[in-house]
């Protein structure tokens, strides 16, 4: 247990000590929020969609968590390169403890980043309808963070170097974000795209978070919660498995 704690703390210390990373990873969500949020606001309202900032913000928060979580997982590659990974792999603690500490730390870091983005969204005009549901929103944020830290851990464990990183960003993470209902709703989409949205784990995270903030669900709270929790459990397991197979 102490190993989990100290490795988690390590992630947090590294996060707090690199303001460049904190500010740097705010750039993209901020850009999306301002460009899309204000760019499409009047169009969205005219089409009868209501307040676009309220619709978009949970998507942007999810995006920030998605990117940071995947990145936290993939950090294993950097630790491999700079050698610290070896130090943990020869220590007399189980791989499971190591990977849990890492994933927990990574998820908390991603959550923290998501919270910063949430504050920015509120400044931009985002309003949470029912403050009683804030814990539910936090739960969804944390589940999204864990889920994608798990995915990042799989890649970080399997890949030997950073060469594949742009591939993962462009062919996995970006599509996951764009087709998650983060920036538009599934209504009126072509059937194939609608189906893609249903297959995307992030869709349920975004929907759950949006529902908690505005009480409007596309798939329903129970579905969202069950799907995201199940997938998180599976991905944590798969991530741990691949991590336990690392050989130096």
């Amino acid at each position: 247990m102490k190993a989990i704690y100290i490795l988690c703390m390590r992630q947090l210390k590294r996060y707090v000590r690199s303001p460049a990373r904190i500010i740097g990873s705010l750039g993209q969500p901020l850009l999306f929020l301002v460009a899309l949020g204000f760019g499409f606001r009047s169009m969205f309202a005219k089409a009868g969609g209501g307040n676009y900032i309220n619709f978009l913000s949970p998507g942007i928060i999810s995006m920030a968590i998605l990117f940071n979580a995947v990145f936290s997982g993939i950090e294993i590659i950097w630790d491999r390169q700079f050698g610290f990974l070896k130090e943990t792999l020869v220590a007399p603690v189980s791989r499971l403890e190591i990977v849990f500490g890492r994933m927990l730390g990574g998820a908390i870091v991603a959550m923290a980043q998501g919270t910063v983005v949430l504050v920015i969204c509120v400044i931009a005009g985002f309003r949470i309808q029912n403050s009683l549901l804030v814990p539910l929103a936090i739960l969804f944020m944390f589940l999204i963070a864990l889920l994608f830290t798990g995915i990042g851990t799989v890649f970080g464990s399997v890949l030997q170097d950073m060469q594949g990183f742009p591939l993962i960003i462009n062919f996995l993470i970006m599509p996951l974000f764009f087709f998650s209902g983060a920036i538009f709703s599934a209504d009126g989409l072509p059937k194939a795209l609608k189906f893609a949205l249903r297959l995307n784990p992030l869709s349920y995270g975004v929907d759950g978070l949006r529902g908690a903030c505005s009480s409007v669900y596309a798939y329903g709270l129970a579905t969202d919660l069950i799907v995201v929790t199940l997938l998180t459990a599976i991905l944590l397991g798969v991530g741990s498995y691949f991590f336990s197979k690392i050989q130096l």
Partner: protein
Amino acid sequence: MAEMIAVHDLVKNYGEFCAVNHISFTVAEGKIFGFLGPNGAGKTTTIKMLTTVLDPTSGKILVNGHDPTRDQKQVRRSFGIVFQDPSLDDELTAYENMDLHGILYGVPHAERVKRIDMLVDFVGLGDRKKDLVKTYSGGMKRRLEVARALLHNPRILFLDEPTIGLDPQTRNHIWSYIQQLSKEEGVTVFFTTHYMDEADRVAGDVAVIDHGKIVAQGAPAELKERTKCANLEDAFIALTGHAIREEEANAMDRMRMMGRAWRGGGRR
């Protein structure tokens, strides 16, 4: 005396390539054992298998009486290691690196604090222990790694080219401490080095490995006698030949290059 490391008929293949080819040796408790060989001979591969991070293709290993492929925890508790490449977290302070190590190895708090202070002072980093490791020079990082490997009072110390990049003063300082540990506390030391004078001076026994096979084994004096050479360096060249070895760049080397390009100027 008990055998702390026993290797029997050990083999490691990477696809077609045989990195370690049927090697056997033993190291008795409290001995300092030098594992010598040219680049790419199989030294680091052997250390990886002894230290549980790489599974052998075949053969048998016992470290402190335990099998590294099955009783990983017992084996890991038995040894401390200084890797060939740095393995510190640059974004943590020296103290935090030590503390993290102590916690991973289950060293109780009071003892941890005491030993960390003692060890960082010993390697001359006492007044820099609160600084981030990324502000350290290569030699300072090396010293910190040696201190860290000793933190949990290991029975065996694996040192993979531990003195690379250190000045003679520091090398002497570290070796005399390691010799003292081996003599007074019976710590077994298994090390690799390219400095033959160092091996000659500190090792009780050495094994010379080349192309994955052990080509000679014994006390440095015996090797010198057998090859009729005046010093161990000449004996080493007599045993392994003059050819310069090419090591293939692995994924890690390629990535380090890329990392350097991206991060501007390299961090080591």
